[in-house]
């Protein structure tokens, strides 16, 4: 009883579908479980959870994943009781359901990887599920073992009397088909009793008038015959007796034998085909409900499409450039108009294609209520999570990469952001903490806020710690915002530091790194005693980038437009050389460190002095501004990002590459790594490259 006699190719395909489906069901399951509250009967929620578990069980059964079936069966049984109100969703049941969801997910993972789960895995949760059912009417019915096959060979034949009720026809069963089926079991002699058939005038179309007496010669057991009539056993009179006995029991009158012909049974089958004049009132609603449909597409196909459209954008830009460079001649402006239209259409096409990969952030947000509940329960705090903007969409890749940092931030907010209940009461605040998680679109970015109403960042303590740890020099006078930024410093990422320093900092540097890898940034705002707000700004897609093309010698580089603050052509007097070969530019009274792209990447024939070229002021994720020295700006362009890592190892200072309109490759500069790169020995030697840290301090003091 399994799908095992499907071909291996089909089976592999079904299995793939199954795991895709499981992934969706498990996300839904987790979300629904997270929304349950003790002592409330959310029937709809429970139904949905039941269906998810049931679907996984059914699929698992088809692939013989017995361990998974067994667990899902127990899980499902408790859910069934809960939705029927036979068991109560109390404080003990809810965590158990949540654990069961985890075990189920883990079991799915195990079988997906082609492994067999340890017998003992999840046994404790299963026992717990079972014990929770004991209160109700008995435990889960055990998964029935496959029925024992074929009892010993039966006698040589059976006499079968089959007398259908009219009920049989109301269930759309058809005696003819059953008799045919019976015939496949052996040799069949059939006698049809037509004696109850009325004359034509008295004939009712939904009545049963015929009955059959049959002799079946077969070596099959009685059960095989009973199985033929399995669906109709309550809708007919049925006698099945071994032939040996039948000899004794002489039938009353031997009816006239007939061959099975459709005419013999056609009478009751005819059903009225009168359509109702008025459409079913609910029919309309049903149609409406089915309008919003969707299809499932493999991600690889979408990616291919995204890629192709990317190529199209590049080709279009290339054509436009060539056209502009060449003499346009007669009718040129019309062609130009055509090119502009093409550019608009291409851009729209690209946006449409990108939209396919977009998914609501709901899939990650949905995990958070449970996280908050668990962490706060562990800490003995009461924390409410409020969410908004769950439907905000962002690229699938971004979603996947966002899950970890967000989990981290929420955990931090509960653990360290929100004070203990006593502290809150002492501070005159509501004893319950609140965390707001929200998402919204701003331009081509998604903004995610994680805001708590906790104690806020204690800047004094934070700074003291930072000085102790040598992250900040003792005589530095950072601004309040700069101090807040310190929580992103790697030095604060140890657990010990966390509890000491008003709580923040557990791996916040890791969070920031993750977000930066997505091309985004993290900001923090905090008010002592009122709370802290983290803002994640992340581009909607990783596939395209608004960039500024800059020239350095013969090379072209792309700077991400989002990082650029302004560009200036500095006067000689604005540039000041510092010890260690570093340069700063004074821009409106503020000193900004200069980084020469030509020196960082070793490009020959670039302008040597900043005042002969341009300084592009860029802002790093931590808010630090640096001046990137380039020869000139070429122009702004949306570029399609091609990964370098797919073909090479990661290249320091370069986040990717793109193809320009002229077909040349341009590298995309990773702003975050620039300072670090500038600090290491340069391909173009500089005088006195030593002690970079002293510069940082010096800069801090100047600023």
């Amino acid at each position, binding site marked *: 009883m399994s799908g095992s006699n499907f071909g291996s190719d089909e089976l592999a395909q079904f299995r793939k579908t199954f795991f895709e489906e499981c992934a969706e069901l498990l996300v839904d399951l987790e979300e629904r479980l997270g929304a349950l509250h003790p002592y409330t009967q959310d029937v709809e929620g429970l139904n949905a959870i039941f269906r998810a578990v049931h679907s996984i069980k059914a699929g698992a059964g*088809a692939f013989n994943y017995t361990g998974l079936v067994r667990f899902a069966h127990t899980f499902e049984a408790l859910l069934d009781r809960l939705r029927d109100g036979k068991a109560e969703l109390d404080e003990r049941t809810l965590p158990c359901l949540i654990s069961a969801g985890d075990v189920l997910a883990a079991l799915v993972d195990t079988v997906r990887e082609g492994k067999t789960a340890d017998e003992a895995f999840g046994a404790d949760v299963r026992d717990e599920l079972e014990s929770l059912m004991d209160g109700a009417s008995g435990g889960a019915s055990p998964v029935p073992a496959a029925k024992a096959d074929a009892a010993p060979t039966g006698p040589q034949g059976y006499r079968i009397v089959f007398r259908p009720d009219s009920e049989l026809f109301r269930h759309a069963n058809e005696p003819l088909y059953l008799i045919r089926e019976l015939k496949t079991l052996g040799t069949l002699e059939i006698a049809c009793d037509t004696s109850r058939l009325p004359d034509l005038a008295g004939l009712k179309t939904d009545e049963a008038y015929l009955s059959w007496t049959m002799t079946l010669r077969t070596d099959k057991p009685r059960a095989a015959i009973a199985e033929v009539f399995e669906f109709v056993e309550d809708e007919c009179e049925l006698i099945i007796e071994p032939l040996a006995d039948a000899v004794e029991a002489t039938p009353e009158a031997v009816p006239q034998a007939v061959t099975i012909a459709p005419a013999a049974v056609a009478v009751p089958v005819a059903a009225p085909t009168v359509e109702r004049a008025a459409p079913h009132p609910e029919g309309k609603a049903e149609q409406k409900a089915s309008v919003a449909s969707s299809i499932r597409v493999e991600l690889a196909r979408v990616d291919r499409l995204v890629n192709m459209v990317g190529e199209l954008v590049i080709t279009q830009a290339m054509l436009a450039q060539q056209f502009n460079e060449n003499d346009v001649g007669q009718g040129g402006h019309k062609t130009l108009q055509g090119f502009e239209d093409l550019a608009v259409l291409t851009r729209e096409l690209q946006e449409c294609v990108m939209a396919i990969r977009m998914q609501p952030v709901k899939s990650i947000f949905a995990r958070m209520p449970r996280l908050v509940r668990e962490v706060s329960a562990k800490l003995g705090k009461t924390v409410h999570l409020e969410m908004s903007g769950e439907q905000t969409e962002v690229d699938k890749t971004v979603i996947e990469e966002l899950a970890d940092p967000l989990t981290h931030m929420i955990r931090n907010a509960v653990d360290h952001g929100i004070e203990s209940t006593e502290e809150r009461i002492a501070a005159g605040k509501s004893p319950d903490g609140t965390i707001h998680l929200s998402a919204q679109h701003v331009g081509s970015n998604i903004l995610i806020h994680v805001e708590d109403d906790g104690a806020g960042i204690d800047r004094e303590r934070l700074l003291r710690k930072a000085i102790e740890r040598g992250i900040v020099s003792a005589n530095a006078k950072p601004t309040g915002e700069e101090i807040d930024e310190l929580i992103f410093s790697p030095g604060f990422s140890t657990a010990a530091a966390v509890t000491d320093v008003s709580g923040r900092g557990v791996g916040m540097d890791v969070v920031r790194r993750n977000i930066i890898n997505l091309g985004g940034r993290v900001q923090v705002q905090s008010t002592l005693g009122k709370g802290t707000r983290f803002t994640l700004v992340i581009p909607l897609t990783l596939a395209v980038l608004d960039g500024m093309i800059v020239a350095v010698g013969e090379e072209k580089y792309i700077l991400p437009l989002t990082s650029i603050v302004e560009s200036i052509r500095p006067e000689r007097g604005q540039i000041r050389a510092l010890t260690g070969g570093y340069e700063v530019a004074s821009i409106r009274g503020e000193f900004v460190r200069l980084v020469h792209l030509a020196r960082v990447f070793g490009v020959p024939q670039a302008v040597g002095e900043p005042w002969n070229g341009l300084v592009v002021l860029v802002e790093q994720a931590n808010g630090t501004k640096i001046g990137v020295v380039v020869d000139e700006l070429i122009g702004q362009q949306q570029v399609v990002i091609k990964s370098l890592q797919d073909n090479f190892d990661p290249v320091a200072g370069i986040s990717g590459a793109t193809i320009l309109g002229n077909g040349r490759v341009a590298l995309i500069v990773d702003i975050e790594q620039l300072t670090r790169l500038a600090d290491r020995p340069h391909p173009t030697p500089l005088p006195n490259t030593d002690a970079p840290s002293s510069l940082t301090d010096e800069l801090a003091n100047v600023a």
Partner: protein
Amino acid sequence: MAKRILTVDDSKTMRDMVSYTLKGAGFEVVEAEDGVRALTVLQSGKVDLIITDINMPNMDGVTLVKRVRSQPSHAATPILILTTESGEDKKAAGKAAGATGWIVKPFAPDKLLQVVNKVCPA
């Protein structure tokens, strides 16, 4: 003309399996992912057999069976419900609603065809 079978299941895995097996046996197969959509399919044309899951969102299988039976044009359309081995009460509920018979999940392709053959031979 090939007989047309409507398979109703919210699980694509199940729909795929049913559909693949039936198509291989020469049936034409239409799919719907819940009871509501199944009724829409039925409005647009006749089918010779409906195979439906029980647990589905929007409209479950038992309700679907009742609704189909209440429509004169489909009063005599055979309906098989898909149920798990432990689903005795489901079989009973399905039967009471007017289902013709049932198929126990998980099923082997041969078994599915055998059951289909009992109510709607190709």
